């Protein structure tokens, strides 16, 4: 009888223990399963964020640049006059020869009244129609394109995005909202949004002004081109009613006066030589 009683007592004890702690074990198991389930997306997010913090490969640059360019065209449209587009490309290619990093440069004219120019990864550079109508010679165009070529060659916005992790944030957002689109398309989307919403650091803007001016001068243009264009923009931006035209540019760039003051010593050192090619510029812009 004694072993039987002991067995019954043991069974009762196990049942009691299970009744007492079984829920806890089950909950612990559920928690473990849940944690394992969460761990995978978290790992994916970390992997994606880590990828965002790495420099983009040449292939990435090209693909993000292409996707970003398509978005810019979707937003603004392109001026499609072949003669003007070809001319802008020839000026850009002439200056682009002297860039610190060689890329297949492609230049487009955005059909908007906003004054500005934008550099996307992979060599895609856009200048706006309004910016071109504010120029009077080829040296000014060369200087402005040189500024954007520098941003692109030096990966300025890409570095800024990585340092601010804004793209990582955009990707996290996309994941959280259940969007599972192509990562490069997400990066391109974030890049274009940052183009219009993010200010580059002052040193990057100064570097783009300096190197853009130097590149244009090395290509044989007057070193004063970009500075002249900045002066024209400064004067026009003071006119009443021009807020819309320059608001975007001024929201992401330093004030014109300080950029002009920064560039002046470089221009003075370069002297008065170099081509302005006003007649060639006017002839190209007059084409229809």
């Amino acid at each position: 009888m004694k072993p039987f009683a002991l067995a019954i007592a043991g069974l009762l004890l196990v049942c009691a223990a299970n009744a007492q702690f079984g829920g806890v074990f089950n909950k612990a198991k559920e928690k473990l399963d849940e944690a394992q389930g969460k761990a995978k997306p978290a790992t994916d997010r970390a992997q994606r964020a880590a990828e965002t913090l790495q420099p983009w490969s040449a292939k990435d640059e090209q693909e993000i640049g292409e996707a970003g360019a398509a978005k810019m065209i979707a937003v603004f449209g392109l001026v499609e006059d072949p003669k003007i587009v070809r001319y802008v490309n020839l000026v850009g290619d002439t200056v682009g020869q002297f860039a610190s990093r060689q890329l297949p440069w492609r230049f487009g004219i955005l059909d908007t009244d906003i004054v500005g120019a934008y550099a996307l990864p992979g060599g895609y550079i856009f200048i706006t129609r309004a910016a071109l109508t504010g120029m009077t010679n080829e040296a000014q165009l060369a200087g402005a394109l040189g500024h954007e070529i520098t941003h692109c060659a030096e990966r300025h916005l890409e570095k800024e995005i990585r340092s601010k992790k804004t793209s990582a944030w955009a990707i996290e957002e996309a994941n959280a909202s259940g969007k599972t689109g192509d990562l490069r398309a997400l990066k391109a989307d974030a890049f274009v949004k940052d183009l219009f919403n993010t200010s580059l650091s002052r040193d990057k803007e100064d570097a783009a002004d300096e190197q853009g001016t130097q590149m244009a001068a090395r290509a044989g243009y007057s070193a004063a081109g970009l500075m002249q264009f900045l002066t024209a923009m400064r004067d026009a931006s003071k006119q009443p009613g021009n807020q819309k035209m320059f608001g975007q540019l001024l929201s992401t760039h330093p004030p014109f006066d300080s950029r002009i003051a920064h560039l002046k010593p470089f221009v003075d050192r370069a002297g008065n030589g170099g081509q302005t090619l006003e007649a060639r510029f006017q002839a190209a812009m007059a084409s229809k």
Partner: protein
Amino acid sequence: MKSGQARAFPHILDSATSGRLTFVIRRICLVLAVTGAALAQDAAQPKDQPKKEEPAPLFSGKLGTKSSQKTKESATLGFNGIDPSGKVDQQMLAASPGADHQAKVKQMKDTAPAPADIDVFIREGGLNKR
């Protein structure tokens, strides 16, 4: 000989008629001289020249006529989607590119100038090649 023609008139006309004729000729010469002087002065003064076409103010001229934007609104209103401070509307930036926009990017790649064309452009402009 010509200057003596008035004095020669007495041989043909009586002296009163000859004197009157001489007076009239002198008056005509005076009127002609005054008219000539007035015309010369008028020619020296700047005339109202036909108005030359003024260049458009900077940042507001026309440039080309063809746009990739198909809708009339977006092709003609460049400030479409821009807020009063000049910033691009965030909804506008959310635009998704379609196949036609991708095609435009491809076109940008395909129509890039050939190296030989860049060389000619550089040479014609008196610019430098790397």
